[in-house]
């Protein structure tokens, strides 16, 4: 708790000052992916469901909001909401199908369903295939604030990101979140306690998809384009990587992971296929040596120093 009291204001101050030091477009991209990773972590970290198809919600929402802003001329906030709602609907349907199985099957099903969305996006005329939706206007926020300026766009993104984070924290901390954790630890017991676990899982899935959609819709506005990249299974893999690297089941882990992965992509862009190799290597190292992720390991170190107790079991120990 003490850590939070000092930490959060410092983080906030850093976030406010950052665009004056670091290239704002990079920051916005990282924030979009951070929200995406947090939404994904809601499912993996708190319900124990590994979705390997979150790109579907992220990318499809990007298309919808880009289309809404460009073709229907909606303002940025409406485009964002529309993208979120679409992802939510998609998440509801896919979640309804996918929660029929659990564990590895769940991962494969979500992957297959998202591949279906990918193929749909390749073929559908409104996405313009490989060209993507280009020159999406950022527009004026509530008709007032011009978002073409990178700085105002950054603060808008920051606000949406913090809102998203608060929603996730609220969900996790509420009784709803407690049930989710109970499902993660022992689903049969949760069922025997009288909880309709499927309904809880579906709600978590839908919420996660919706927030992933918000992140995707925001990315479309930031870069003023929506393309196939964001619905491809590579994007699904990247969000898993971010969460794993940062720390599954921690609040800030996915954020840290997202910043690192986006930095790798951006600053090693010249290295071409090496980016894939590096990402793969990080996966392997994370899984083999530090399954708590960076933030997870730091927290664990902190906890052990204060309590000097035995280490908590790493996530996923046991079947």
């Amino acid at each position, binding site marked *: 708790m003490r850590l939070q009291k000092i930490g959060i204001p410092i983080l906030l101050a850093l976030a406010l000052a950052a665009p004056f030091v670091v290239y704002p477009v990079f920051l916005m991209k990282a924030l979009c992916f951070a929200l995406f990773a947090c939404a994904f972590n809601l499912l993996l970290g708190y319900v124990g469901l590994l979705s390997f198809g979150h790109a579907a919600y992220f990318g499809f929402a990007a298309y919808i909001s880009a289309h809404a802003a460009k073709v229907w001329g909606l303002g940025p906030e409406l485009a964002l909401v529309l993208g979120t709602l679409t992802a939510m609907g998609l998440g509801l349907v896919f979640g309804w199908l996918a929660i029929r199985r659990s564990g590895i099957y769940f991962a494969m099903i979500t992957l297959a369903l998202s591949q279906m969305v990918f*193929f749909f996006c390749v073929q559908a005329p409104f996405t313009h*295939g*490989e060209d993507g939706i*280009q020159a999406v206007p950022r527009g004026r926020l509530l008709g007032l604030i011009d978002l073409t300026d990178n700085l105002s766009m950054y603060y808008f993104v920051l606000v949406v990101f913090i809102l998203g984070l608060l929603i996730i924290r609220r969900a996790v901390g509420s009784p709803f979140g407690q049930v989710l954790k109970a499902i993660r630890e022992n689903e049969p017991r949760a069922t025997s306690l009288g909880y309709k676990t499927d309904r809880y899982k579906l709600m978590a899935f839908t919420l996660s998809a919706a927030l992933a959609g918000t992140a995707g819709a925001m990315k479309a506005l930031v870069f003023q384009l929506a393309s196939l990249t964001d619905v491809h299974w590579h994007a699904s893999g990247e969000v898993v990587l971010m969460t794993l690297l940062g720390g599954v089941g921690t609040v800030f882990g996915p954020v840290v992971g997202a910043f690192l992965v986006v930095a790798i992509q*951006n600053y090693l862009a*010249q290295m071409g296929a090496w*980016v894939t190799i590096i990402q793969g290597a990080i996966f392997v190292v994370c899984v083999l040596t530090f399954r708590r992720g960076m933030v997870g390991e730091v927290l664990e170190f902190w906890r052990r120093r204060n309590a000097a107790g035995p280490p908590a079991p790493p996530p996923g120990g046991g079947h």
Partner: protein
Amino acid sequence: MKRLSRFALATALVLALAVPAMAEVSDGVVKIGVLNDMSGVYSDLCGPGSVEAVKMAVEDFGGKVLGKPIEVVSADHQNKADIGANVANKWIDVDKVDVIVDLPNTAVCLAVQKICQDKNRINLISTGASVILTNKNCSPTGFHWTYDNYALAKGTGTAMVKEGGDTWFFLTADYAFGHDLEKSTAEAVTKSGGKVLGSVRHPFPCNDFSSFLLQAQASKAKVIGLANAGGDTINAVKQAAEFGIVQAGQRLAGLLVFISDIHSLGLKTAQGLVVTTGFYWDLNDETRAWSKKWSARMNGRMPTMAQAGCYSATMHYLKAIQAAGTDEAKAVAKKMREIPVNDFFAKNGKVREDGRMVHDMLLAQVKKPEDSKYPWDYYKILRVIPGDEAYKPISETECPYLLEKK
């Protein structure tokens, strides 16, 4: 007081805007950024080979323009439009890049051309294919150099009909690019008196074409048009050979094929394929001389039209800076339109108002293995297609700033 400060601010602004225009070369260096696909699907046909071509242009120009050094930087956009946009923004804002060259993948082209237009920089597209880059999405400072899908479709469609291939069946990649390619080709075919018997839309990307090839065979069309690109075209050609389509008398027309694709397929499989290309290394002494120089630096490969186009475009850009006496984009763009293009790549090429560089195209047929005498001896040139015939006429332009003028 308030008014005075406002006046001062205004003066400062005017000065700030005017100064770069007056300076000869901004920041004392001309920086060329080669942005393309270094590792993905297009890396063989542009990739590092394009960077090498641009470097050769800089060396041949003497390494300096208006007395200032020329620098070349490069990056991989991984075929992701957001990464491409990010690199372009950073190059212009932070690294002071003056021109962005090559640009495969239409999604990236569109994004980067828009950025260059907004920030008043030149972009020279060589590998990008779509005709919309000089039409609906044209830019006063954007140039499209080597080819476009319209020219390829029209060249191949018209020429094949003239040679007796008057009935067509299309295998079309089921996304915007494939649909456009099919439409342009079908138009050219019908205009020349041919007939389209049908088409089938295959998923993209597609591994197995056997089913679609069987449908094409059943149509009894004389020509099977491949309205797809890259790996899809390669697989289709390969499997057509397997099913004996060409031996049975039907001809294949590749609508977007690079010589690197032929190299990867091998002549045994690709023989007989008819393609339109903007450049062939073995056309004449001049093309051979340049290509061999390039080849020596690229492990014996031979340049694709995209790579050769990068050299030509860069050279022309540097000449335009020399002539304009500045590297300010609008002045350079104006000169680029005035000076004719004359090098090994293009004879009497001209840069149109919409940014399209119009030059002669070549209709080629892939040789039989026994006719190929030395490495990379792949094409038999059937016909030279005059530029004005190949490219979309400017009278049909959809370019907004040209339409306004009318």
